[in-house]
């Protein structure tokens, strides 16, 4: 360290740094405020029931978001139904069953790496693996295998093409590492004494997990899962790659339907030159943010109400 400084210098330094801290923090809050206010300002005017209920249109005053809204619901439902069991299962295996071998360390490192992969790269994977199935069923538009009635609910087609199923599975890849990591953290937070108690009573490892550890970890797992799902709701780059349709008029009616999602609709409208569409994009953002806030609110509620300390 340098030569000793006078007390006055040090106190001044201390004070100056506090001001710097306050400045930085307020800048962050200010950025959030400007963002929210500017979007509300621009989007509030065109936000009404008709906007929520209408399909896409070439005229801004007639356009609405019903199709991408339902697209988001379908895609996120598929994503959650696959990612949550798979992710929670992986985390349980790694935390509760697997011995600390070279292999499990490798799996763990691999999951951390997957969490860092850009989402658009998952889009490439989804396009190849789900939408085209590696070309195993031919590469043309009409080749492939079909099951069931194209209009019915239980219609399936291989390869999946640019369908809600392909989109949902692609998003699943994006959020899977997040679900795994947050579940692992929730499980690690459970005191080992709880497990020891169950094991001492003669329960098997699985009985311990199912009867003791999981119920105790549920609030943590749910908080993590909800945050992962809110990431899925806002994600758009991978779906752009998988090929969501930009102009469709029908809401999805089965797993093979074309789809658009809310963030991509926002992207599409924001790209257009007409100012009318920019206002619509702002309105759609308001809807998107309200949905996200609701999700985050539930997560905060669970964290505060259910997560009572165990010790």
């Amino acid at each position, binding site marked *: 360290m340098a030569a000793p400084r006078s007390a006055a210098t040090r106190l001044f330094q201390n004070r100056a740094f506090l001001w710097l801290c306050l400045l930085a923090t307020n800048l962050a809050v200010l950025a959030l405020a400007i963002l929210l206010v500017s979007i509300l300002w621009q989007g509030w005017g065109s936000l009404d029931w008709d906007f929520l209920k209408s399909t896409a249109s070439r005229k801004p005053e007639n356009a609405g978001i019903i199709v991408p809204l339902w697209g988001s619901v379908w895609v996120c439902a598929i994503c959650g139904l696959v990612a949550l069991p798979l992710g929670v299962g992986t985390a349980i295996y790694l935390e509760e069953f697997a011995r600390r071998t070279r292999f499990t360390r490798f799996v763990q490192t691999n999951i951390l790496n997957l969490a860092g992969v*850009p989402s658009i790269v998952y889009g490439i994977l989804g396009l190849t693996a789900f939408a085209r199935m590696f070309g195993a069923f031919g590469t043309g538009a009409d080749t492939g295998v079909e099951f069931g009635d194209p209009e019915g609910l239980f219609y399936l087609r291989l390869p999946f093409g640019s369908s809600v199923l392909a989109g949902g599975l692609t998003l699943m890849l994006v959020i899977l590492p997040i679900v795994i990591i947050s579940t692992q953290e929730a499980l690690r937070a459970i005191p080992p004494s709880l497990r020891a108690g169950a094991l001492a009573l003669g329960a098997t490892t699985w009985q311990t997990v199912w009867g003791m550890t999981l119920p105790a970890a549920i609030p943590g797992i749910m908080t993590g899962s909800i945050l992962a799902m809110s990431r899925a709701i806002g994600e758009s780059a991978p779906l752009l790659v998988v090929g969501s349709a930009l102009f469709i008029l029908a809401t999805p009616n089965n797993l093979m339907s074309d789809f658009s999602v809310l963030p991509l609709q926002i992207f599409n409208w*924001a790209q257009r030159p007409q100012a009318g569409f920019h206002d619509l994009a702002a309105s759609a953002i308001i809807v998107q943010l309200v949905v996200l806030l609701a999700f985050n609110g539930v997560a905060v509620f669970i964290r505060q109400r259910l997560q009572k300390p165990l010790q």
Partner: protein
Amino acid sequence: MTTAPSNLTPMTDLTRLGRPKSVTIRKIRERLIVGSLAVAATFSIFVTTTILVVLAKETILFFQFPDVSLGEFFGSLEWNPLLGAEKHFGIWPLVSGTLLVTVIAASLALPLGLITAIYLSEYATPRVRAVLKPALEILAGIPTVVYGFFALMFITPALQKLNPMLEGVGTPESPVSFGGYNALSAGVAMGIMILPIVCSLSEDALRAVPRSLRDGAFALGGTRFDVSVKVVVPAALSGIVAAFLLAISRAIGETMIVALAAGGMARLTANPAAEVQTMTGYMAQIFGGDAPAGSVEYQSSYAVGATLFCITFILTMIGQYILRRFREEYD
């Protein structure tokens, strides 16, 4: 499963497991469950392998096109597959575009995020924290396409107001004059996007530093500034650096902000007012439907994707190495 943990006592819980079963059945069931969980765990390895295989295969296909070569990819300084009579596939303009936007974002978010984290962890009262943490969580939850919209509709017009003051700045070939698309606007929006990541991860690292270190420093007569900046921050440095790397790799991989606000012209420049294209921006443009599948332009986006994957992969690995190697273990 809906039982709240507070009602969970070993008694109620073990009675819920039902009638005792034979040991054999229990063992078989246990095996089956562990087996299926292990399959779930291997799925992540399967995902990684598939990413690698797909990127490698498609990138090789790209390099098999007649006017493409590895030497050109890393040697040429031009990237213009969509315009221009003669197509050039040199990756550097896209890399420099990504770098420019990322540097702008990082120079904004890293200092701001770290200082905010120090404030939250060392200075703020619980009441201030209770307001600030949710605000940062909201920022972290906002979809990136919203930041892109904000950059295009708010930041860019604000920057354009500066244009009259900037006359004569920069070279005649590349004047500092903001157009409808520019790197600075995208960079600023991206900085706001990664700010909560930097902040919350650095704060976690700072709070993990044991109290005794702070008490010791205070006891030696340190001011709060001395304690936080000269004791706590160095002790948490590995976590902070890892947070920085994670935020930077998020910025490099971010797509929607740059696709909306940075523009679509790949060029080698350090001018923040210029229109640039990033690696992700190019991929969004191609996959968004600007090139027919199977064409050389379309295939080139896989090579760009492979480059992007390698860069973020290396950053993630360095971050993990730093966390493991330089972690200061206390207590």
